[in-house]
């Protein structure tokens, strides 16, 4: 009993406090155990250097952190400048007041249209991938049928094939299916690219759902379909949310297949559309381009800031399991 209390106290401490700051406290307890022979008190000089090193490390990390925020700052800064201000120097205080560059990009630069296309593709592809993965995850994780292990591995194997090297046959297939320049082409393709990983994560999640709940639903007369709709889906919402964020970032930022499959302005997505603003058709208007880049980045950055927790969960689940 006493031991148990002590253990839980330890856990509290490690949760709330930093391991680094714990050292002395835990160390004192270990002195009794005679493990302190290796520890010598630090001389004031060594302590001094250690502190310098510590702040050096922190400021180093701070510099990296600044570089990660800099692109955002650079885009915003230049979106609020005039073309003349840009030529004068690429960095400095905004020279234009108001959001002329943004309206220029949204209306004249077709960015509004590209934004709509990206949104349609993202919504379609992410929801398709999630539905497929939820169904497959239930099947692999809960149902028993012959060959489910080999089918599962077969599905996961496609994760090892980089889709980029399939660009030639995928392009030709889309031409033959008559899907070129249609939302359907990229919606289906992105879903197919994301499904193996999504299925992997869903299977792992569904397998860990409490057996009792499913059993209770069975007793209440829910069949295979009923249990899926009324029990598995509601309980898997956290996993589905995680995958939703993960897939969204991929689809929104994908470039190569959007470039290959969507060449018509009416269906073109943001990544390709924004790149073409620097093309040879006319002299690049940098403030407008920067405004377009800001518009293209806002959804992903917002999603990241609000749903960071879910995204991290998807990455870690892919790594640790």
């Amino acid at each position, binding site marked *: 009993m006493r031991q148990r209390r002590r253990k839980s106290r330890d856990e509290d401490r*490690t949760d709330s406090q930093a*391991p*680094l700051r714990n050292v002395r406290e*835990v160390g004192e307890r270990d002195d009794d155990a005679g*493990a302190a022979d*290796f520890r*010598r008190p630090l001389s004031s000089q060594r302590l001094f250097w250690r502190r310098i090193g510590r702040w050096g490390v*922190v400021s180093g*990390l701070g510099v*990296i*952190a600044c*570089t*990660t925020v800099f*692109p955002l700052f*650079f*885009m915003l800064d230049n979106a609020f400048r005039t073309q003349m201000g840009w030529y004068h*120097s*690429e*960095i400095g205080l905004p020279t234009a007041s108001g959001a002329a560059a943004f309206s220029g990009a949204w209306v004249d630069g077709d960015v509004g249209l590209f934004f709509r296309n990206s949104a349609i593709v993202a919504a379609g592809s992410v929801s398709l991938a999630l539905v*497929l993965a939820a*169904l*497959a995850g239930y*099947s692999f994780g809960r149902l028993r049928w012959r060959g489910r*292990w080999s*089918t599962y591995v077969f599905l*996961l194997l*496609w994760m090892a*094939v*980089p*889709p*980029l*090297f*399939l*660009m*030639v*046959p995928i392009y*030709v*297939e889309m031409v033959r299916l008559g899907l070129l320049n249609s939302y359907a082409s990229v919606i*289906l393709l992105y*879903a*197919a*690219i994301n*499904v193996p990983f999504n*299925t*992997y994560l869903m299977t*792992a999640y569904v397998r860990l759902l409490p057996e009792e709940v499913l059993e209770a639903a069975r007793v209440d007369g829910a069949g295979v379909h009923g249990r*899926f709709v009324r029990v598995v889906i509601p309980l898997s919402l956290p996993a589905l949310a995680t995958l939703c964020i993960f897939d969204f970032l991929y689809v929104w930022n994908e470039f*190569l297949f959007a470039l*290959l499959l969507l060449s018509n302005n009416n269906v073109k997505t943001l*990544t390709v559309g924004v*790149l073409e603003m620097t093309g040879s058709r006319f002299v690049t208007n940098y403030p407008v381009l920067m405004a377009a880049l800001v518009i*293209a980045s806002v959804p992903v*950055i917002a999603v*990241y*800031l609000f749903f960071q927790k879910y995204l*991290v969960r998807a*990455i*870690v689940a892919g*790594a*640790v399991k």
Partner: protein
Amino acid sequence: MYALPAVGVVLVFIGYPFASLIYHAFTNWSGFGPVGWVGVRNFVNVYHDPLFRLSLRNNAIFALMVPVQVIVPLAIAYLIYCRVPGWRLFRSTFFLPAVYSTVVLGLLARNIFSVTGPFNGLLGLMGLKFLEKNWLLYPPWSIPTILLIVIWANFGYNVIIYLGGMSALPVEMIEAARLDGSRFVRTLARVIAPNLKNSMELVLVTSTITAFAYMFTYIYVITNGGPGFDTYVVEMLVYNDAFVDRALGYASAIGLLLIVVTSTIGFFQIRMLTGRGRERVTQ
């Protein structure tokens, strides 16, 4: 039956193209007209193609990022794990580069590293004006600059992977090492690293695959292979052979070769993911 739609979509849009790629790698396919079987001639030509060698060499140079990607994020993750001042901020911001679209990053890089861009401005401020140049179009520096951008864009992802791995380690173990007087680097090398083998293996595999299979967007947006063919990579070669020169069979052969290489590496990743799952699925 529930798994059928997922398997179907993957088979139609990944599996069928894959089979088609294998078949057409042995043909002189041009996209239209009859398809002629040429045996292994494509592969012989690939072997003698100087541009292929140059591109593959460039990919290999980009693979130099692998050791950096394995070690630096590990150290950063450990610092965050140790709760250095500001760790919450670092944890959030370090992933940002992986959130920006590659196209956006590429376009920004083109401006930031240009002759009049802020990077040269910074050098000027530090009194290093003689170093100023167009970093992305000046041959000896273009590849290292892109390499730096790619490393910067991906390191946050690896930090997250390592942090996930570290949160699963028993706290007592690390504290015990510290008690024995182990300093930062020693703890990292002797205690953390050996216990994060899985995460490190994963980072190793993903960064190697990135260097060989995910460079296209960076190169296409930043330099389009230039100056000359200096920053060409195999993905550019596949793209141009197929969609500019219409040598679809030849492009398929290059694609197939690279898939064999990368999926051999990737296979180990899949084995890691499924290895321990088996008992649980077939219980």
